[in-house]
């Protein structure tokens, strides 16, 4: 979707303001929502692409107003409701529906270290050869899906060069909507700054973007 989350190349967002001695979390609730999202994700009812898409669905003005972890809280709450792990009534009352049997956590404390160490690999084995090779000129397709995609607006229709073949990965465009993994090759594609931004850009600078095979055409 052409949402406000797709920020590359936008103007008007202000200056980058680093904070010296920044803590990992600025408030306890940020730490808790970070951990809650991981613990609830472990149920496997959704995946990383679906959770990214859930945050993209936050209305644009709210998305820009919210802090990072407010977006996490909003996204997590939406996913919990959508996938039936809590009900609207429970959220409103703060209490479990009476009479329901108690559930079991998907991520008990004893499993945390192993979960972090293993991670959630998104690569898949495939014997299919890559369609493109390093050095090959390509053009990013001009796709404007209403759903989730990881093809940023600023490269659509632009010409680039395959820098390297990164392997075969789950396709977010379908995975986010529970329509299958459709694994395919991902390429780091080099786009010259002048191709993206015009003649005023620095002549040698470039942006490298990781793109799935179906985002690309041979050029």
């Amino acid at each position, binding site marked *: 979707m052409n949402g406000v*989350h*797709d*920020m*590359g190349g*936008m103007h008007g*967002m202000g200056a*980058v*303001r*680093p*904070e010296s001695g920044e803590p990992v*979390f600025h408030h*306890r*609730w940020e*730490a*808790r*929502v970070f951990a*809650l999202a*991981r*613990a*609830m994700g472990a149920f496997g009812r959704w995946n990383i692409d679906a959770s990214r898409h859930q945050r993209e669905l936050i209305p644009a003005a709210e998305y820009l107003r919210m*802090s990072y972890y*407010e977006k996490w809280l909003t996204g*997590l*709450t*939406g996913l919990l409701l*959508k996938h039936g792990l809590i009900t*609207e009534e*429970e959220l*409103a009352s*703060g209490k*479990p529906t009476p009479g*329901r049997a108690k*559930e079991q*956590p*998907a*991520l*008990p*404390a004893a499993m*945390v*270290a192993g979960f*972090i*160490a*293993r*991670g*959630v*690999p*998104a690569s898949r084995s495939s014997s299919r050869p890559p369609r493109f090779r390093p050095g090959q000129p390509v053009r990013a397709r001009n796709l404007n899906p209403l759903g989730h995609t990881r*093809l*940023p607006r600023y490269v659509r229709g632009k010409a680039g060069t395959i820098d390297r073949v990164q392997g075969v*990965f*789950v396709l977010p465009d379908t995975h986010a909507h529970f329509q299958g993994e459709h694994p395919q090759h*991902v390429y*780091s594609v080099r786009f010259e700054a002048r191709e*993206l931004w015009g003649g005023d850009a*620095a002549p*040698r*600078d*470039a942006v*490298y973007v*990781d793109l799935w095979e179906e985002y690309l055409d041979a050029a």
Partner: protein
Amino acid sequence: MSHSHDKQRLPSEPALRVMALESLLIEKGLVDREALDALVETYEHKVGPHNGAKVVARAWKDPAYKARLLADATAAIAELGFGGLQGEHMVAVENTPTVHNMVVCTLCSCYPYPILGLPPVWYKSAPYRSRAVIDPRGVLRELGLELPERMEIRVWDSTAELRYLVVPRRPAGTEELTEEQLALLVTRDAMIGVALARAPKGAGACATEIG
């Protein structure tokens, strides 16, 4: 709130809402409070840029390791015991006298947790996400790094599940330093590519020390 038609909840008071959500999920049995504590403890105290600094220091010291790191960063980083969540697929990119690399995630805020910990607020902010790709030199200037025009800047937008580590250039005058001493020169910002590695004490850092 139960009458709200919005699919997305817009928390007016996040702290209260998180507290209520956590207690609801615990009461339902869906969440183990100690698991939450362990997750927080890991990212608040165990995982952080000191991990990545060890990787870079090893690469500076050991050319064979650097070659492995640039060829297969996930495996090379695993040699030092790091990996896992949000570092499943690592790529290392090396700064040289003619090329400077920096990393952004324009679409969300992807970041290599196992070697850098959780991202700082500025990295997740709209200004950095919007401008790093169109005005990298301006962004670097705001962060205190002025690069010469002849230097090629490569911005890596981590749109997929690959996570990037910038291997900064080794500062001059560090030939005698141990790997542990070298690691102290490798900052988080240098591994994102918005700063250079620190100069060793007594060499080159005089401007700030005198100033």
